[in-house]
């Protein structure tokens, strides 16, 4: 769709007083951008469908064997990690699956950022928590975030299944062997990338749920611990 951009050019003078024209332009711009986002969603989901099914099958195996999912990202991508953890642990339907966002504990994030360095805020948590059989999911629109690359390297070393969501051309995540599966949304717009990543995240979750129909090997309800 052709994007109308003439309204983007500002009035040179500050004497514009009738908001009516601007409101029409704003609504039209919203519709156009929405259409672009919808188109990117459709194209992306069609292109990555096989990849998502492959990843989902591997994740379902790991969840079934007691694996846990750790999610991370920076800025808006940090909120994507939070959203993913919420979706897996408190799903609107289906079974809850163990998942945590590594950006949620501010005490840990600030402690690591202050004492060890911002590039290690996720990798140090992976060292502390993760075991072989777990999963690491990192979000970055550029695919270049240093702390994600460090976290993926650590996760790979420890036998985690590593999954990246990246945008633009995939960046470093798209070519780094430590990211076993990199889902790339091919758009130059950070906003449109995040929107399609949200859709891909939801589809991946639905595929994982569909594959989780048999009993897991670990008890879902653990025996109560004795109080001492």
């Amino acid at each position, binding site marked *: 769709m052709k994007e109308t951009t003439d309204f983007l050019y500002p009035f040179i003078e500050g004497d514009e007083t009738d908001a009516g024209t601007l409101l029409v332009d*704003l609504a039209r711009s919203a519709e156009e951008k929405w259409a672009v986002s919808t188109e990117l969603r459709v194209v992306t989901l069609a292109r990555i469908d096989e990849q998502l099914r492959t990843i989902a099958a591997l994740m379902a195996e790991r969840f079934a064997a007691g694996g846990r999912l750790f999610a991370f990202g920076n800025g808006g991508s940090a909120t994507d990690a939070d959203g993913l953890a919420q979706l897996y642990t408190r799903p609107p339907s289906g079974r809850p699956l163990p998942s945590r966002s590594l950006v949620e504990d501010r005490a840990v994030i600030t402690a690591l950022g202050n004492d060890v360095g911002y590039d290690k805020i996720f990798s140090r948590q992976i060292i502390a928590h993760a075991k072989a059989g777990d999963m690491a999911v990192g979000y970055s629109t550029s695919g270049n975030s240093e702390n994600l690359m460090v976290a993926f390297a650590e996760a790979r070393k420890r036998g985690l299944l590593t999954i990246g969501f990246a945008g633009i051309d995939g960046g470093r995540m798209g070519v780094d062997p430590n990211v076993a599966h990199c889902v790339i949304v091919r758009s130059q717009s950070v906003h449109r990338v995040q929107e399609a990543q949200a859709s891909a995240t939801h589809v991946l979750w639905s595929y994982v749920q569909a594959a989780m129909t048999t009993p897991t090997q670990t008890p879902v309800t653990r025996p109560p611990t004795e109080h001492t």
Partner: protein
Amino acid sequence: MTEIAAVAEDMGRASLALARRFNSGATMWCTSPAWPFHASHVAVEFVHPVIVGKRALAAVTVPIGADVVATLRANVRPGDIVVALAGCDEPQVADAMRRGEAWGVETVWIGAGAQRPTSGSADHVIWLDTDDPLEASECFVRIYHLLWELTHVVFEHPGLLKDDAQAAVCNEEVCITCSDEGRLTEVVSVEGDEAVVRALGVEELIDVSLIDPPRPGDLVLVHAGFAIR
């Protein structure tokens, strides 16, 4: 995927209001009790723009798990913005939106579902019909991205940034803003027949002898200096 046409105009009007408020120094308070990650995403979007050179705007998230009304009551200043992402059945959000007039803030309620807030529940209601929670979630991301993008488009029209909404001050016995309707105010403290209330974010003394004694936090309708309901 949900179509945008139904809410495109709502988003345009909301963006114009946001730009005007920000231009006058507003802080935008974001809350989403059910989906806190969405509230965080809105705030980071405005504070730290993805496009280099765009101005950073004051946006902040109501802390996860916090009492929404209590947090906002203590923090909002007249002219601020409150953005909520919540379903119709979120009592904390409905309560906060209802107090927007008393606090003097612009309220934006983004949500989805067959049931929608009653007309006038917020200054701006951007509502999607879908009952699918994942589809709604994807639409929310688009909506707040677009609100940010459109707000910055409005900034390029300086002549339209004068905030008319704040010019209307309601302090006369013959009230041009509320006519005979009365203004919704929030009780701050009560002393006998008198009470301090917040009206459009500003405290004033009113007479409460015509109604049952209110308590702090109650919403009362005030006309000509008297609480009438």
